[in-house]
Each structure stands twice: as C-alpha cells, then as structure tokens.
C-alpha cells in the first residue's frame, strides 16, 4: 500500500533523512519510533506530499506522490504534529470545510461527519469554537479531520500527545478499530503505545532506519539480559556482596535506601538465565527477607541507546 524507496532529504549541509526504504502492506498498523529530530516528521511530510524528497520515491496504492500528487493525496488522511486547525471556526464549520476541500464524492455529508465525530468523541463540542477547546479536544479535531473522506492510508504524527490517560486509551482503540480496514503509520516516542497498537515498528535514528520488527521481538532483542529491581531488608554492603556472588547475576547496582532499614538493587542477569530463584534462595539462606522484586523491562530509552550505539 505504501512503498517508500531510497528517500533522502537534506537541510543545508545536514542530512534530514538518508536513504530510507520500507514498504507497508494493506491493513497494517506501523509504529514509527524515534527520538526528536530523528526524521520522523520529515518522512511523514514527504509521504503526504507536503515536502518533496531530494531523492527517492513514494508510492501510495501504486501512485507516485510526486508525479500524480492529486490522485495520491486522495488516499491519504494526515494528522501533522501540530493539528492544522482554524481556531476561529466551530468544529462543525471546520469539518464541513475539510469535507469540501478534499472534494469527497460520497453522498451524505452530514452522516459521514456525524459518524467521525462519534468515533473521535467530538459530538459534545460539535458546535463550539475550536480555539476555545482544550488541547485534547483539539487533537481529536485534528484526528477527525484526517478521517474525513474515509482515506485508506492514515499518517498520524504523535496522535496521542496532550491527551489525558483515558483519552489516550480511547484514541488508541479508535486507531486499532480503523486499522482493521486501513493502512496506518503513526509516529510516537511512547513505547507502550507501540506495543498496544502496532503490529510492526520502524525505529529511526539520525535519519536512518535502525530497526524494523514486531514490537515484542524488538523489546526482546534489546534486553537480552533480564533486569530486576529488588528491595531487601538488611545492610547495603552485606546484601550487595551476597547478590554479586549469586550464580546468574552479572551485576548488582545499589539504588539507595527507599524504605528505612532496607536497600534497593538493580540486578542484571546473565543472558538466558532466570536469576530470580537463585537470588531468592541466597537471600533466604542469609536471612534477608525480600520486600519487593519486579522485572524492569527495556524502556524506549534503552532501545534507542542500544540501537544507536550499534549504529555508530
């Protein structure tokens, strides 16, 4: 559905993005991950035809965005990083305008817009001026705008920014629901979002794609060693020495005293070994009760550090 090949764009001397290629089949939801300035927005702007690439091509449903922009753009709904809202219009006026602007051919404008408002939870604020809405609602209006005309491809640049936790869940559900019949690229720097919504992740750093995989595999490959946070009742020095001596523990870093009379450690286990049982036996044997033990999953920061370290 989306074919990107050899995309390159430079800003002055610095390379915005460098030779990016990927292809996304119909109906897939793809997460586009990357730190700020990695080139996510640039790539999305090129796919939607807002910017042009220095080199490379983008095809939407087999149509080249550069050669036949008008036809290609009919297939795309785009929510940019900052929603493109006319603040002095009401939600109703705005969505009507977008409907006309996109030249939607279907009949039943009112029904179509009412359905979108329903999906994005805008029905309550339908007649209010956009400039007076909260950030979360503005974000929803932006999302609704992308949905007008029922495009088969949705490009969403950080769709859940500024929403409260309940709204985030709602919007994710909306995205998942839409993803059943559409191809979606969404950019984010929130890892749980990717695992909650996406079937595939593209990680971009410094303008190149450094990983392209399923979210679960990605998290697994990065954290080859499991990490555990443990809180033990007892003296820091003694417990530390004990932990470092346990089989399967590669290192135990003290994290300080969070609770009186106890100490916290971050344990990195040797790859492929479950260190929880030996740690328990060792501490139980020495008479130090475990107050807390929890696995610490790789965070997005870890993934980036890891992937970008490997890249250089």
């Amino acid at each position, binding site marked *: 559905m989306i074919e990107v090949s050899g995309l390159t764009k430079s800003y002055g001397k610095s390379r915005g993005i460098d030779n990016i290629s990927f292809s996304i089949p119909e109906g897939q939801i793809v997460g586009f991950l990357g730190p700020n300035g990695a080139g996510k927005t640039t790539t999305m*702007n090129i796919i*939607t*035809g*807002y*910017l*042009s690439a220095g080199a490379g091509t983008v095809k939407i449903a087999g149509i080249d965005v550069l050669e036949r*922009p*008008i*036809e290609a*753009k*009919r297939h*795309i709904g*785009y929510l*940019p990083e*900052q*929603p*493109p*809202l*006319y*603040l*002095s*219009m009401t939600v109703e*006026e705005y969505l009507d*305008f*977008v409907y*006309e*602007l*996109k*030249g939607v051919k279907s009949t039943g404008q009112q029904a179509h817009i009412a359905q979108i408002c329903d999906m994005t939870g805008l029905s309550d604020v339908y007649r209010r001026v956009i400039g007076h809405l909260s950030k979360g609602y503005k974000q929803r209006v932006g999302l609704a*705008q992308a949905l007008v005309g029922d495009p088969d491809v949705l490009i969403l640049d950080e769709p859940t920014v500024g929403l409260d936790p309940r709204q985030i869940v709602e919007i994710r559900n909306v995205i998942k629901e839409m993803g059943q019949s559409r191809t979606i690229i969404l950019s984010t720097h929130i890892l749980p979002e990717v695992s909650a919504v996406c079937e595939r992740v593209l990680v971009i750093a410094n303008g190149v794609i450094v990983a392209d995989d399923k979210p679960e595999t990605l998290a697994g490959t990065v954290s080859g060693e499991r990490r555990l946070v443990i809180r033990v009742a007892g003296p820091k020095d003694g417990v530390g020495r004990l932990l470092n001596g346990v089989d399967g523990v590669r290192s135990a870093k003290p994290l300080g005293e969070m609770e009186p009379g106890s100490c916290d450690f971050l344990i990195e286990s040797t790859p492929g070994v479950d260190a929880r049982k030996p740690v328990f036996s060792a501490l139980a044997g020495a008479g130090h009760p475990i107050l807390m033990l929890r696995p610490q999953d790789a965070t997005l920061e870890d993934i980036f550090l890891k992937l970008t370290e490997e890249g250089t």
Partner: protein
Amino acid sequence: MLAVFKRDLKAYFTSAIGYIYLGAYIFVLNLWFYIFNALGGSSSLTSIFDFMLIVMMFITPILTMRVFSEEYKQKTDQLLFTSPAGLPSIVLGKFFSSLAVFVCLLLLTLLWPLTISAVGENNIAEVVGNYAGILAIGMAYISMGIFISSLTENQVVAAVGSLGLIVALFLLEFLPMYFFSGALPAFVIRALRFVSLYARHSNISRGLLALDDIVYFLSVCAVFLFLTARGLEKRRWA
C-alpha cells in the same frame, strides 16, 4: 477552489480584518466625497477615483497580508497542501475571496453615483470607465499582495512588503530621471515606463480607459498569481 474561497471570505468577516478594511476605506473616501462632491457641488467622480487609486496602494496590503501568512503561522497550510485540491485552485480560491471583499467595497461606493443621480446627472461613460479601471488595478494589487504574503509567515512583514512592491512598481518610471539620468539606453527607459504603474494610473484617472492598460493590469495579476503558485511549489523543495 470553492471550499477555500468560502472559508477565506468568511474568515474576513469573522475576524476584524474585513471590517477594518471596509471601514477605513469607506470613512476616508466618503469624507472626500462629502468635501469635494457634496460641499464642492461637483458631479464628476473622477477626482474621488483618482484619490481612491492612491488609497488603494496603502490599504490593499491590509486585505492580503493574512492570506498565506496566517496559514503558515497556524500550520493550516499542511492541511491545504496535503489535500487533493491542487495549488492553482488554492491560490485562485484565495485570490477570489480577497477580490470579493474588494468588490463589496466597490458596491458600497455605488452610493456615490446614486447620490449624484438623485440631485444631478451622472456621466455614465465616466462612471463605467472608472469602475472598470479600478477593478483591474485592484486585481493587480491583490495578486501582488497575495504573492508577498506567500513568502512569509509574518503578517506585518507581508503588509509592509506588499506596500513596498506596489509603491516600487508605481514609481519605477521615475528611476531613470533621478538616479541614472542619461546613463540608461532608451529602450530600458521605455521598458521601465511600460512596466511602471504610474502612467497607467494617470491614464485611468484622467478618464482614458485604454484597452492596453486593462490588459496590462490583468497581466500583472496573472503573473503574480502564477508566481505565487510556483513559489508555493518551490517551498516544498526547500
């Protein structure tokens, strides 16, 4: 094109710009009409149209400064330029919405010939000629303003820049007189005079409505709208 036209026209009158533009114009011009036509007892509208040509140079930038600048500022240009509406239709939609406000103004000024017809007699040819001339000039100025507005996201810069462009084009033929007297070959001087707005202004304000002047203003309008569309296309490559 229709969607952009309708939205922009509405935006003129949901913000203060449309009212300020019409209000300022009508206030200044009606004052003139009162002093020279009502108190002066003249039935000729030529002097007021002459004055209007000068006022237009200064007030048209207010009309056009927000056209693209505001879109850039609000980032709504992303919506327009990623929509299936092509650049030419976006530019034309915006041009016609500004032109529509200008036509509103002209409709308001119809009060003058109506007033005169109530107490005296209009020179129909003079009235029609003046309106045709001023409409053509208005189109040229609006397209220049839109072009400048498409270059910046700052509305003040757009307004001052448009004023600069219009005044520069207006005064172009005086350039050789004061700066390069004798140094320029005759064809350059003729070319400058051809491009300059001043002589054409004075033709129209003297009541000479020549076809080539009208064609000139319409061409200026077309050239700047074309440049706007090309410039927007080029922005993508920046």
